[in-house]
């Protein structure tokens, strides 16, 4: 009964004075790259950052992870593309994106104007397409590539590659051949054993793993007796999935040596700390951006104020500390 806790006001985070904050080490390392802090954005929830620049100083983020980029422009799925669920949402955007050319010409220079790392999420319909995008990006000024083999909302590519350990290993090693940057493999939670696909990606040469992508879900519109999403199924994200995500990060971290980027339902610093203690080196904020455009920074401030309160000088002490 005497177990004391601190209140959760976000405002509180901000009140800690700057000097104390400056003494904290929030730097983390993945694939030889140093990130100023462990907070990035979850692919597809932050565009290429442009729409959030009025709310978030992008230079304060550890990295910006972009929306999935493909070889040619993809039109995505018909609407409705989103549905609300209890504590979460379903999306079936279908990886609409303007293609790698526009990304390189327009989005990359924009992102480079900020002092943050750039992680480009890569999608394709065939292993060859993934490799082509990876190759195109190899000579660009980006920091890491995240290979999305776990999107549940496209017929070709996506999740089809991510649910079978054999194919995970194969595509990882194929992509690695073309990559000059460290490669993150983004895993699907729609599997019986996440440790297996995690190990397969590691065996294929992945420099890091990110998880989880969305859980496949469905919502039925009982008024019109039809699927709510035009695509029938969609990917479930948001706080509803956090317990599954934390469990999978823990299991993956126990199974592999490469660092992990954890995500799934993070809305505040405390959520991020669960992932970090379960074994994630970095965390990504996704759906929370839609509820609070400043979510990424609120998460970062929440982590920092926990460190101050618990007198933790280096975030790396917390990574995987719960065993």
């Amino acid at each position: 009964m005497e177990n004391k806790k601190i209140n959760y006001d976000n405002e509180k985070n901000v009140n800690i004075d700057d000097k104390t904050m400056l003494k904290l080490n929030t730097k983390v390392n993945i694939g030889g790259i140093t990130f100023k802090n462990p907070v990035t954005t979850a692919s597809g929830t932050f565009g290429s950052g442009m729409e959030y620049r009025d709310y978030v100083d992008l230079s304060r983020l550890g990295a910006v992870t972009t929306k999935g980029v493909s070889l040619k422009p993809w039109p995505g799925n018909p609407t409705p593309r989103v549905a609300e669920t209890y504590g979460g949402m379903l999306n079936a955007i279908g990886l609409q994106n303007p293609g790698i050319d526009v990304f390189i010409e327009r989005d990359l220079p924009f992102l480079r104007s900020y002092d943050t790392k750039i992680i480009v999420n890569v999608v394709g319909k065939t292993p060859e397409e993934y490799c082509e995008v990876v190759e195109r990006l190899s000579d660009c000024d980006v920091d890491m590539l995240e290979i999305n083999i776990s999107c549940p909302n496209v017929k070709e590519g996506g999740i089809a590659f991510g649910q079978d350990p054999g194919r995970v290993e194969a595509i990882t090693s194929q992509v690695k051949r073309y990559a000059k940057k460290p490669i993150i493999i983004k895993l699907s939670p729609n599997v019986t054993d996440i440790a297996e696909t995690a190990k397969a990606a590691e065996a294929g040469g992945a420099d890091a793993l990110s998880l989880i992508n969305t859980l496949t879900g469905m919502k039925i519109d009982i008024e019109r007796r039809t699927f709510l999403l035009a695509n029938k199924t969609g990917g479930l994200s948001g706080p509803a999935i956090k317990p599954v995500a934390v469990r999978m990060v823990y299991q993956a971290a126990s199974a592999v040596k490469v660092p992990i980027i954890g995500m799934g339902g993070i809305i505040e610093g405390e959520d991020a700390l669960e992932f970090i203690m379960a074994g994630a080196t970095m965390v990504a904020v996704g759906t929370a951006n839609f509820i609070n455009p400043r979510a990424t920074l609120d998460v970062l401030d929440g982590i920092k104020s926990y460190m101050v309160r618990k007198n933790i000088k280096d975030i790396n002490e917390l990574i995987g500390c719960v065993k």
Partner: protein
Amino acid sequence: MSAAIKKKSKVIQNERIEEGIYDLWLKAEEMASIARPGQFVSLYCKEGGRLLPRPISICEIDKKTGKIRLVYRVLGKGTKEIAHLKSGDLIDCLGPLGNGFNLEGKKALIIGGGIGIPPLFELAKQLDCEKNIVLGYRDITFLNKEFEALGDVYISTEDGSAGTKGNVLDVIKKYKLTADIIYACGPSPMLKGVKEYATINNIKAQLSLEERMACGIGACLACVCKSTEIDHHTKVNNKRVCKEGPVFYADEVVL
């Protein structure tokens, strides 16, 4: 354009004006100072695990007192929760969002259907030209009295209980209403009809569309509509209702 603001706003008043229709005034100084007619606000719920925004168009802006007015229909659980707010309560709002109407033309035809009527109110207030205002309802009418101060108002109801029996197009044909600019907001069959009418009669038309949203600020690509030309942002025939819209010229979009 200034950026949207995410803030808790205080409820000044939240009254039922008709069966299922509520009239909400929010104290939102920053928003009121930059908002334009046709823009919308994302309202956020607290209960029932509801995370996504409820986009509601701005019905009226009072820059002097720093208030904005939203008129909304209780459709599902989110709007029901909002309908329970009392004066003094706080609600999370993000806005103003979207592009809003371009004020143009000399003779305007303002066409609203159902809950598409409120977004046209501030427009009608700000438009400084000849105005014919056509308001279509299913049965119960609302806001029509307030519109009367702003132009010539024509009413249609599906059941004929007020004005012309039928829809807004029946009214327009009946009274042979002409214009050099149309502004319309309402259900998509109505907008389709209006677009057709505008094309045939060669009248410029601004249509306010609706789509399910997640971010409300152009990042997630949930709320797209089909565009006639390849969009500069997406490089495919998609425009974002929350960002390039909700107001489009009729010839920009495929309905």
